[in-house]
């Protein structure tokens, strides 16, 4: 499939909205599937990379990886702001398929997230499907872009401005 740019870190994430209630994020990683699975499911790995924009750390990363098991991740920003995300695992089929609920608390709707891991010649394709309870909820999440969750800093605006100039 992908032929150009074999250098690590040169893949990009693509986003699609195949239905009114879904967002699908697809990404290829230059690593075998078992390792990518571990990176998505082991706390010592997740807390190293699932960090969004610069400035976030994940001081709490609890994962009870079994159907019905809970997970809880807490992010902290340099200014001390914290964000918590929780959920329950529904399906755990290593290293192929992971289904879990995701909850931001407050007024954010709970979503059901499915990640499918496919090995392609030593690389791994992950297709993450997030299903919202309604189109409105999906659109709101995309539009306001986790405004509260990821926060807005001047650094971010600084980074953005050169791209529009």
């Amino acid at each position, binding site marked *: 499939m992908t032929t150009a740019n074999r250098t*690590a*870190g040169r893949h990009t994430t693509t986003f699609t909205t195949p239905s009114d209630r879904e*967002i699908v994020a697809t990404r290829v*990683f230059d690593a075998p599937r078992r390792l990518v699975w571990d990176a998505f499911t082991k706390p010592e790995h997740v807390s190293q990379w699932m960090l*969004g924009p610069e400035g976030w750390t994940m001081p709490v990363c609890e994962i009870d990886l079994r159907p019905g098991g809970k997970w809880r991740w807490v992010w902290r920003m340099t200014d001390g702001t914290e964000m918590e995300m929780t959920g329950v695992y529904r399906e755990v089929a290593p290293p192929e398929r992971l289904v879990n609920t995701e909850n931001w608390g407050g007024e954010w709707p709970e979503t059901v997230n499915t990640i499918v891991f496919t090995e392609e010649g030593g690389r791994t394709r992950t297709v993450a499907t997030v299903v919202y309870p309604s189109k409105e909820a999906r659109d709101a999440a995309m539009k306001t*872009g986790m*405004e509260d969750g990821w926060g807005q800093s001047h650094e971010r605006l600084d980074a953005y401005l050169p791209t529009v100039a």
Partner: protein
Amino acid sequence: MASADTLTTTFAALADPTRRAILARLAEGPATVKEISEPFVISGPAVSKHLRVLEKAGLITRGREAQWRPRTLDAGPLREVAEYADGYRRFWEASHDRLDAYLEELQQKEPNDDHRE
């Protein structure tokens, strides 16, 4: 929260390269119309017209009275555009990029490929 109308106005204001250049200049700090006009070959009135569009879009503000009062960037609408355009994506892209590097690191640490299926 950005309404569709706000976003439309903001995008329209950002659609013009001269206006984007003006915003980039104001991102460095407030500037008078004269200072803003300097890099452009277009006339002063043309620059003023662009400034009015940016003001209407709420992207810049100016001192109340005199013409020479400096314009200041108002980041609010831009922030909303940034969120709209990449709030959701940015989290995943940034995380995935970091995972790329992390996986490479892990594989260097474990060259025996014991993760292979």
